[in-house]
């Protein structure tokens, strides 16, 4: 379940459980934080059943504006297939074309200092979906610097 209780209520979650469905809610207080949480799940180890174990050997992330969905959604095939032989690439969302947002900032800090996966791999690329009006060059620079 992707999204917090304001997006999908606990009643829905409870109803699913009542039907015998195992539910994991992945959410943060903002769209950017939710995307970061999802990225954490995607890059976590599959072997320990912590996540999906996406390729760490050419670790990278996609990024799109979070207050406008078109660019990110249209990039699903590109990121899901991987870029230049990488595994699938998680999508991160900014708060706006010129703001990273707290959820993204703390995720970038964590990944920038620890790397991705186990054993940790440094992030090597950033795939920006959308033009400079959607994700400003300064924001791209800040993200690349933080990684």
């Amino acid at each position, binding site marked *: 379940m992707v*999204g917090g209780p304001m997006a999908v209520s606990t009643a829905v979650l409870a109803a699913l459980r009542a039907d015998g469905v195992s539910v994991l809610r992945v959410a943060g207080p903002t769209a950017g934080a939710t995307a970061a949480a*999802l990225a954490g799940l995607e890059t976590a180890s599959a072997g320990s059943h912590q996540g*999906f174990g996406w390729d760490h050997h050419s670790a990278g992330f996609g990024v799109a504006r979070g207050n406008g969905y078109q660019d990110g959604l*249209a990039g*699903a095939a590109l*990121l*899901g297939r991987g870029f230049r032989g990488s595994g699938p690439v998680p*999508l991160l969302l900014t708060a706006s074309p010129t703001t990273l947002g707290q959820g993204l900032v703390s995720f970038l800090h964590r990944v920038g200092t620890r790397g991705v996966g186990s054993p940790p791999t440094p992030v090597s690329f950033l795939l920006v979906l959308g033009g400079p009006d959607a994700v400003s060059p300064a924001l791209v620079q800040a993200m690349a610097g933080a990684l």
Partner: protein
Amino acid sequence: MTPVGGRRVRAMLAATVVAASLGGAILAAAVPSAAAGAASAASAAGPAAAAVPTGAPTTTVTLYVDASAGTQATGCTAPGTAACATIQEGVSAAEKLAGEAVVVTVAAGTYAGGVMVTAGDLVSLTLQGAGGPRTIVTGGTTVRDVTILSGTVTLRGLVVDSGRAIYGGGVSDGSDQPVANLPSRGLAPTRTGMFSAANDPAAATRLPSPAAGGPLTLVDDTFSGDEAAAGGAVYFAAVSGTAGLTAIDDTFSNDTASTAGGAVFVAPGGFTGPETPAAFADDTLTGDAAPYGGGILSLRLTELAFDTFANDTATVTGGGVLMFRPAIVLNSIFDASSCARFSEAPLEGAYNAVTPGTTCPNTSGTGVTATTLGLSATLGVNTAPAAPETLALTPTSPAIGEVPAGQCIGTVSGVPVTTDERGVPRQSSPTAACDAGAYEYVARPPVGPPPVTTRRVSGTTADATAAAALATAFPGTCPGTTGDRPVVLASDEEYADALASAYLAKDLSTGTLLTPATTLSAATLAALRTEGITHVYVVGGPLAVSTAVVAALEATPAYTCEGTKPLGRNLQVTRIAGATAPATAAQVAAFPGKGFVGSADLSGVYGTAAAGVGSSPSPSAPGALRTAIVASDGEFQDAEAAAVLSYAQDLPILLTHRGPSPRRPRAPSPRWASSR
């Protein structure tokens, strides 16, 4: 003469000695404040002004020598064809310019040695080479390269190669006997003379006589493969009160002497006045050899600062240096073979780097150990001949940072010398320490992860960005797996359909394009052609993607991959839609059939509040479970990133209203709306 204690040495260093050590010419001026100390002999030196002729300032006259372009034998007044062809012609032209300061520029090329300089009538004479390995003077192993009979002379930017003489194979400030009279090996130099009559009965006749040369300055020169009985590369014997030897930024390599001073022999001075010094700064001496003083043998006051001695050898004593007079040795490196031997106190030394335990093996005089010279640690000097920078400091060399900030910059004739032999600044900041030896180590940036590369995938509109993303996702090919090249098309005005479409796009091995509800956008139309699309799967009802758009699609010709040729038929269109966004998502989820639903085992994160993952305390069955993604149908659009997960892991996305008592998202049995 009173030996100087360590504390006194430090005080002097801070005040004057470093400055003094960097140039013989300035030494006499700089040392008087330290006259009560060790350099008492120097204190008797005349005023420094004596080294520079007084009177009206002179202009500098420039003459030109060019081995390849020069055609003249006299004059040498302009470059190119007006230049002279040999150094001797240039020097002879200069000698006619009495009272002038003359610079003879010598273009890159190879020039014959045997040059005789009589520059006593000039203010000064400079032979200026092209620097580096480019201007080469060679004695061809038969004659000395340059003989200086008189004058204040500077050699700059020259390679002085393969000279051969009794005294000073490369350069000497006096003439001497033919090389055939080379003394036999094994003669020992003495403190007062050089080769005593007892040692060498013929020594008197062999000495350069008279040694009338003036101050000699060597800057940025390379002396290599020169050979002599004394002073393989340089023999300096000026006896007048104002003459000193100054060597800055020079390299002496593989020079040999059969008796003493493999690279340099400094004969006694002071016979007709004060004893003027020899000074060596930022010089590298390597591979030089002689029985006594493989690198330098000096019989007068000598100062060494920022010099590197490596692989210099002596069969008797003093592989690096052998000093018979008081010496100041600062900020220099002596490797294991290049020991430093000092026969007369006092020796002043500080901030040197010396291989531990290295002393010069001999019986008399004062052997100097690593401890008295300064730093005692294994040296990190790269002596591998094939290394890119032989004699470069290795990153762990103790010579790095050995010299404290206050001792890094000296002056020569009032001009600060701030760099090492190569020209690399000694200090990164005024408060930074610097390195011993002629090579200043520059740390390379730490090796970290390669920089993050960024690539932007975009178009001028959202639809164009979607087209760019599709093209990037299928580089060099077209979407689809068979002759059928499908694409998914969703509204660019509504979130839910495009989100759900990722699962379908994966099943079809394609991606998603976007369009406004009422008209097909130009960017999307272009992408349909260039991607060679044959089949469009429209996700969403007529309110999301109008019937007019579908009609336009069905009237659009399909093209071959790359869009070069029409296939002769139009696009095929399939609409997948429900009455609501969740219903459409359910249709999409059902389209590929349940066998396509991906599985995930996330039992490891169930019941935990893993970092960044919303807590959902719930027991869960372990093992791989067929999995779907549940998200809001659009009131909150925060599941955008889930589209990637859906695509990558084949997880259908089911949509729901927020609740609290919503219709449960339900995947219907596989069926879908037919086209239109």
